[in-house]
């Protein structure tokens, strides 16, 4: 069992496009200053950013928790939002329920969840329609790092 070294939580506001990306920016600075190797850092930042954007686009609010152990980086994003009726479908590239308005802003091309999955070593979604969605992602640190 990996020993937990650090746990920090961040609040994300839904539909606040102005502040979108700030939380993933903070996570990047924390992990960079801790000397996480660049390739893994990059994956973490992409997963955090895509997760944050999903909350901003679809949910009311969410808590993103960063958990660092001596073996991996874990991101948990628990939101209050509409939920996902068909998770398998949501994970297909190009599937999107984004509005035209969101697409005009350059989001909602159906790459968010697939991209998160691609950049994670373990990835899991739990969702209840009408209540919210929880996303868990694990990025393993290289043993030689």
């Amino acid at each position, binding site marked *: 069992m990996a020993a937990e070294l650090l746990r920090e939580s961040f609040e994300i506001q839904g539909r606040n496009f102005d502040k979108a*990306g700030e939380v993933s920016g903070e996570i990047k600075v924390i992990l960079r200053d*801790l*000397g996480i190797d660049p*390739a893994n850092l*990059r994956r973490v930042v992409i997963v955090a950013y895509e997760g944050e954007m999903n909350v901003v686009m679809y949910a009311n609010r969410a808590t993103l928790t960063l958990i660092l152990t001596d073996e991996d980086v874990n991101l948990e994003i628990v939101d209050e939002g509409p939920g996902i009726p068909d998770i398998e479908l949501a994970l297909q590239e190009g599937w999107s329920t984004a509005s035209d308005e969101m697409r005009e802003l350059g989001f909602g091309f159906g790459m968010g969840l697939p991209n998160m999955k691609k950049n994670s070593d373990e990835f899991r979604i739990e969702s209840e329609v009408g209540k919210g969605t929880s996303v868990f992602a694990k990025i393993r640190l290289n043993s030689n790092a």
Partner: protein
Amino acid sequence: MLELKHGFKIDADKCNGRMSCMRACPTHAIRVKNGKARLIPELCIDCGSCLGVCSTGAIYATTITFAELDRFKFKVAVASPALFSQFGMKDTPAQVGRALLDLGFDAVWEYAVDIELIDRAITDCVKTWPGPFPLISDACPVVVRLIQVAYPSLVEHIVPIDAPREVAGRELKRRYSQELGLKPDEIAAIYITPCQAKTISILQPAEETKSYLDGAVGISQIYNNILSKMRKNTNTREIAGDLVSSSELLHWGAPEGEFPSLSREHYLPLTGLTDIMKVFNDVEKGKIRNIEFLECHACQGGCVGGNLTVENLYVARSKNLHLSASMPKPGPDFEEEVKRRYAIEDFSLRSSIKPRPIEGEVLDLRERVARRKRADELLRGLPLLNCGLCGAPTCKNHAEDVAALRADISDCVFLSRDRIDALRQIYKK
């Protein structure tokens, strides 16, 4: 770890400890302890912000002097195009080139060819690059160092093509050693630089190889000499008619002119560290799509705004435009030479650029997390006013310094009354 060199030095005798440099430094690399500024070398990216704000001249660029050039048998100037925009509207690049010869250089290199070659090499590289995108230009040494220090995950985005000044140094040594029967190390390739950052890229290239150039002379360092030679108009030496005659030579200094062959839609020219950092933050998140190339200059306005230039940026740019418009298009000889060299030379970076380890010492992840937690705890006891009186630019930096055992928490005036008395002693007139 290799000792890091920097393009400037701090003269402790001249430093009056007024902290302007510490407050101006974008990477928080300066501390002022006991009334004297000092550098944390691992954090410094050689942007030169400190140089510009130092009121006593204690911080100075480590350029070379003419006396140091005497050990070479043949001295060649590679002039940054920014040089030619520093003089009057009627002063032509040819006159500036002649003044350089009068000052003791044996030749002025036709640098426009190298600039054109790298423009082509980069354009071709962008076309065949498998990713990740966007590629980031490496001509500005500050940008490369910023990536190494603050954006380690972007090192793979740095375009793997050498800077034109390096390609110029290599070719001029090859050519003159052949023509004059000299050894390459008897020939000096001297860059006339608009900033101190390019000096450091010669002293210690980011990719950990040896530079083809032998040193740099700041524009401001020889400005007066050039001006007086031009005004005296001493035509002591014969000069080739085609010397510094092409308008391509003037492209390098202006940001938009750097890569004329790249498609406008997929290419962003960026100037100024603040704006560059904003875009880099977005690149890290994967937010920048459909952009193939970022051309980055740390100085606002590009190299004509460098901290060793003399003329103000806006006048220099206007002069630059004027020169570009009034000079003849490069002739067929120029095109021939570019074609000939492009076919035979390799322009790739000689080795890859790696992130710079921030910690001087090696710590494992557990210890780094423990240190961070300690810094967070300490920060809660600090006033968050960022007054700087402890000698660190922000309370956060002070907390980190204490956690890393680089400073004493009681240096904060809010935690220790004695500190005020100590400062009074240090700053007593």
